[in-house]
């Protein structure tokens, strides 16, 4: 099958999420997408080889990080190159020569291009001989020329200087503007009927929903649903959603009508929120496993909402039986809880997902981490047999960040329900953390997310920064 090249113009955000999103949406629609090394995630332009134009259009309609997509006519690091290729692509554009209205846009990335130079660039394409009228408002065809300059190029300089120091020029015909991107406004937290201080920003909630391959007829679960941010985006793409949280107030808010249902109604997805339940995920009532197509969640890491589970800080001595407590008003009863350390929680979550997911189902969740300490090895402490990491994208906040991890249940075996007794990875030694790695006497790798909460509140200082104690 002959393939055609398409230019993807990415939004300037969340670079690390671009390729995983493309791959997820291609998988969702079941077409092959071979990216290999074609896309450098740090660059805002990517060229894809696809069998059908329809495929790039599907990407543009679903990928949050796509600004626009073009049929690629030429790409080169000099204009001679570009024009030579463009002439060779004549079969792609000659049908527009006779009487198609058109418009030309010239854009620079990391560099602004003066009107005069834009005119010059357009002029240089005149050999294409388009005879239709120029229509700036409603053209039948939009031709785009993009000059990509290296990062750090955006400095004040005389216009004529550096104008040809671009890295690449891309030229092609606009197929579609990315139509999923405006959903970021639709799901804006500030315009939502119900939200809280744990609500996830709209753009990330949408990216997460795409990682789950949400679509009509799928069943997706958020076990730490809070105020429901990802439930709305997931349901928007057609899936049915279940949610649960240890704290009913997070889901309900103050009015009788639960807050999540009010916000869901605002987005027209109320009936796709199948149900919300109050329970501790480590004491859950699920009758069986193999239920969900995906689990999407932002687990508590103790910074804004408590990471907790039912229990007491000190385990009760076995032979002091509890007096049975009559429960007059169950809604009011708040059982005691104990803290839930992040490395134990993350390991439990993956085991739980392996139990609750259907074969091939996905777990999509955030793992907060310390940027300087993070190692790829950190994920080993989270994984279990049968579960495979397929994407790992960093959202960088400076000293810390959070990684959106996508894990696939790569087995059709059924597993027993989890016992929720994953032990926290042993804490790092007080001294010499750095040397620990290569030290054979301490073979256990301590992931950076261990004790994230404590590290967060200490401002991510290394023990050695703390001065004499």
């Amino acid at each position, binding site marked *: 099958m002959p393939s055609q090249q398409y230019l993807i113009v990415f939004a300037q955000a969340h670079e690390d999420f671009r390729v995983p999103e493309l791959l997820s949406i291609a998988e969702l629609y079941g077409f092959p997408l071979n990216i290999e090394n074609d896309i450098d995630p740090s660059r805002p332009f990517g060229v894809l080889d696809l069998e059908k134009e329809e495929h790039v259009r599907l990407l543009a309609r679903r990928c949050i990080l796509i600004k626009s997509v073009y049929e690629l006519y030429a790409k080169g690091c000099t204009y001679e190159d570009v024009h030579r290729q463009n002439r060779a692509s004549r079969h792609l554009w000659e049908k527009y020569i006779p009487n198609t209205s058109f418009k030309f846009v010239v854009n620079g990335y990391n560099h602004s291009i003066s009107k005069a130079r834009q005119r010059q660039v357009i002029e240089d394409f005149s050999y294409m001989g388009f005879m239709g009228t120029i229509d700036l408002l409603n053209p039948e065809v939009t031709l785009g020329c993009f000059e990509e300059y290296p990062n750090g190029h955006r400095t004040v300089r005389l216009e004529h200087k550096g104008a040809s120091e671009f890295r690449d020029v891309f030229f092609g015909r606009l197929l579609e503007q990315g139509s999923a991107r405006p959903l970021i406004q639709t799901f804006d937290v500030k315009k939502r009927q119900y939200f809280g201080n744990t609500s996830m920003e709209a753009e990330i909630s949408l990216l997460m929903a795409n990682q789950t391959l949400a679509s009509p007829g799928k069943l997706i679960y958020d076990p730490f649903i809070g105020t429901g941010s990802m439930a709305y985006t997931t349901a928007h793409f057609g899936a049915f959603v*279940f949610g649960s949280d240890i704290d009913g107030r997070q889901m309900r808010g103050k009015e009788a009508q639960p807050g999540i249902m009010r916000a869901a109604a605002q987005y027209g997805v109320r009936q796709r929120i199948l149900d919300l*339940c*109050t329970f501790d995920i480590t004491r859950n009532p699920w*009758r069986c496993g193999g239920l969900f197509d995906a689990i999407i969640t932002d687990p508590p890491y103790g910074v804004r909402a408590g990471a907790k589970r*039912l229990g007491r800080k000190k385990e009760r001595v076995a032979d002091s039986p509890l007096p049975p407590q009559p429960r007059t008003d169950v*809604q009011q009863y708040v059982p005691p809880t104990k803290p839930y350390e992040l490395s134990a929680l993350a390991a439990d979550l993956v085991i739980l997902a392996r139990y609750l997911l259907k074969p091939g189902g996905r777990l999509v969740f955030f793992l907060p981490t310390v940027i300087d300490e993070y190692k790829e090895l950190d994920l080993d402490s989270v994984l279990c047999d049968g579960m495979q990491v397929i994407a790992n994208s960093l959202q960088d906040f400076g000293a810390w960040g959070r990684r959106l991890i996508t894990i696939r249940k790569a087995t059709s075996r059924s597993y027993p329900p989890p016992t929720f007794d994953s032990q926290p990875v042993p804490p790092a030694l007080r001294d010499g953390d750095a040397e620990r790695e290569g030290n054979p006497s301490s073979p256990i790798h301590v992931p950076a997310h261990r004790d994230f909460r404590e590290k967060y509140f200490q401002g991510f200082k290394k023990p050695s920064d703390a001065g004499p104690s």
Partner: protein
Amino acid sequence: MVRLITHNLLACHAKGCTTNNFPLKLTDVKLALREADFNPDFLRGFLPRVEWDALIQASREIGDTSLPVERPEMLDDDLLRQLHHVLLEIHIDEGSMTCPNCGHVYPISNGIPNMLLAEHEIW
């Protein structure tokens, strides 16, 4: 909310309560009917997960007798519509779910069931 699809997936999980802990008995229910997306593929895919007897028992407890008592071998269009209605469109907004084994009462308020356990039910 609570829909019967959910009810069909929830078992009592109090400490030591591992047999006869399903289905939870529905009482004092306040019902509402709300339309939902009809998706035959979803229903066919979900059917193998359904505990049929529990679904029949629960639907009769709340006054719906549209489904056949025997688990159907084949799902024709009529049956799919009925199953869709029973699983997804009947909502229990208030009421209780009681464990047939240990008697734990899980209350439903404003459509959200409280499945939390008390301290003495955990250890």
